């Protein structure tokens, strides 16, 4: 980060957390909240045991089961013995080291990036880490949040801190107003297509502008969530009244006199007018339309109105080779209108789009309609509480009456680690975050879409928007 007269939001939060600074070394940052789950933590706990170390701050650590848990028969023991061992290992580790855990079946179980905000644990100005790349989600609150590997998980468990080299800063400004039917997911997919998978590498991104300010907290989380898909270290939105309204009254939000004190602090968390970013990108919200991917990385996307591109149109040989490979894997021909692509499966869920507003938006489209013949639609709420809330509003009935499957909470088909997977050659429209080869199951083909496009696609059987119905 550059030093200018003013400071960016990212720089303010960073500076407040520096435990140790020494020339030629990364800063040692204090970590306010460490979220853990079953897949990236077992080896970290083993490391602690081997070295005879304790968890320094179990009271700043929270665990849940999400990546590798089933979404069916959740009241029964996990059928796959290897998965069961992994989940049981987390339970044993949490018990041994005194860490609060929300296990499968608990009212607060769910995808780690959904339950943090839901509990009010994610607050402005915090540093938050998790052994999961989509930790950037929490940046929607003006927190500095990023994904780490298992060695770093062990480091945070042992020291509640992490050595980190200071990234550069990047501003993504989305001016104007989003047209009807264009969602935060479309904004971030369009952004990634514009800057490429490495476009944010080494930068903390701050999302700004009228379109971001107009988004709900859940919409901002969707945008921040996918910061990693263009390589950014983290994504942030400066907190405002929308943030404070979301937080007030949540279980871990400050109360009474402390609420006012916290508010005073949170309101200081903005980028100074004279601060400078290392890089700036602008997007005009009014020019955006529903966006979908055609390839095997999240930057390979086009508007739904567009066609599958011809690799020969790409000048850069690496980009061209990547597009050729992607089309072969996706079994798509250049020039095919995106709307003509038929799908077998629609997946509504994930830490990107598995919150209550996503489910409401999709249910509004599905209401009174049927999932097309031959299409399987999986609706996987992001957390047990999202599921309960949806059932309270009758959304489950809408989905079930349309022929969709109503499941338990977890990461599910977003990463295809549990039994929710695509079969080889199957094609999905998915509200998740990655269309990598085999991501949703070996040989599976993924088109990333918004919840609105997912719902309309489920009804028509081909990529579609609600306006097409």
């Amino acid at each position, binding site marked *: 980060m550059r030093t200018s007269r003013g400071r960016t939001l990212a720089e303010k939060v960073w500076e407040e957390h520096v435990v140790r600074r020494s020339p030629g070394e990364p800063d040692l940052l204090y970590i306010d909240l460490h979220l853990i789950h079953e897949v*990236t933590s077992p080896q970290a706990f*083993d490391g602690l045991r081997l070295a005879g170390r304790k968890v320094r701050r179990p009271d700043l650590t929270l665990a849940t089961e999400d990546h590798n848990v089933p979404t069916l028969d959740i009241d029964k023991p996990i059928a796959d013995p*290897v998965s069961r*061992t*992994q989940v049981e290992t987390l339970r044993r580790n949490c018990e041994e080291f005194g860490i609060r855990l929300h296990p499968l079946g608990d009212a607060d179980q769910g995808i780690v990036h959904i339950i943090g905000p839901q509990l009010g644990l994610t607050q402005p100005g915090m540093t938050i880490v998790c052994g999961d790349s989509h930790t950037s989600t929490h940046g929607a609150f003006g927190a500095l949040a990023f994904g780490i590997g298992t060695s770093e998980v062990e480091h945070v468990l042992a020291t509640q801190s992490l*050595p980190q080299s200071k990234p550069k800063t990047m501003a993504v400004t989305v001016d104007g107003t989003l047209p009807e039917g264009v969602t935060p997911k479309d904004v971030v997919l369009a952004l990634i297509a514009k800057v490429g998978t*490495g476009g944010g590498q080494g930068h903390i991104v701050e999302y700004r502008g009228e379109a971001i300010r107009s988004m709900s907290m859940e919409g901002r989380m969707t945008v921040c969530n996918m910061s990693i898909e263009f390589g950014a270290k983290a994504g942030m939105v400066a907190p405002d009244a929308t943030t404070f309204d979301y937080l007030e009254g949540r279980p871990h939000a*400050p109360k009474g006199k402390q609420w006012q004190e916290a508010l005073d602090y949170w309101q200081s968390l903005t980028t100074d007018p004279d601060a400078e970013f290392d890089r700036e990108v602008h997007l005009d919200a009014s020019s955006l339309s529903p966006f979908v991917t055609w390839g095997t990385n999240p930057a390979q996307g086009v508007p739904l109105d567009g066609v599958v591109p011809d690799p020969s149109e790409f000048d850069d040989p690496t980009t061209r080779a*990547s597009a050729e490979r992607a089309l072969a894997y996706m079994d798509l021909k250049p020039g095919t209108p995106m709307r003509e692509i038929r799908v077998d499966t629609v997946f509504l869920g994930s830490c990107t789009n598995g919150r209550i507003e996503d489910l409401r938006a999709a249910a509004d489209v599905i209401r009174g309609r049927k999932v097309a013949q031959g299409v399987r639609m999986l609706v996987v709420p992001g957390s047990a509480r999202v599921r309960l809330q949806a059932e309270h509003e009758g959304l489950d009935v809408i989905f079930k009456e349309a022929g969709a499957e109503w499941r338990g909470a977890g990461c599910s088909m977003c990463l295809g680690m549990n039994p929710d997977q695509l079969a080889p050659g199957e094609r999905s429209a998915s509200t998740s975050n990655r269309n*990598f080869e085999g991501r949703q199951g070996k040989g599976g083909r993924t088109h990333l879409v918004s919840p609105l496009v997912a719902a309309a696609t489920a009804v028509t059987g081909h990529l579609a928007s609600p306006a097409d119905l």
Partner: protein
Amino acid sequence: MEKFTVHTGKAMPLRRSDVDTDQIIPAVYLKRVTRTGFGDGLFAAWRSDPSFPLNRPEYRGASILVAGPNFGTGSSREHAVWALQDAGFRVVISSRFGDIFRGNAGKAGLLAAVVDQKVVERLWDVVEQEPATPVTVDLDQRLVIAGEGPDQVRESFDIDDYTRWRLREGLDDIGITLSHVELIDAFEARRSSLKPTTVRPATT
């Protein structure tokens, strides 16, 4: 962690860009609770193709992977690093790495060396023409050397000073940080009491 100074071995070309960590090791292989045994899942989806370099006898025993740009993007899974190490790799060379992968590599003792894409192309050419060419990666001098004569590749690579120092000394990050534990204590003593804890609130 094993010290890394100079390594010489066979190199395997991977002529692909954007090899994300799901390609390096798919999620279904992440269920083990140990750090070992992940080599079986390395590049799992591509292993059924006999022409894939990992299946070709001439690259058997390779310990240096030369990959296209944006290697190791995507998921934070350190299992990607462990899988490469389990399969015998000590070094990955690319023009650009995913940040989390590069960090994980540095922690686990896998050298992630950054070179210009032109250097990657030359290395690919050398080891495709003559797979047995010994490739030397010298962390002391930050040099990668392959082949001999006029076509020899002798280029410097980038790695940050701190990671280089840790790899050369074989140092464990946690040990380094705990040598400054009094600074963590002091930070906690002045840390705002407004910050939340995960202790269950009385009402829920």
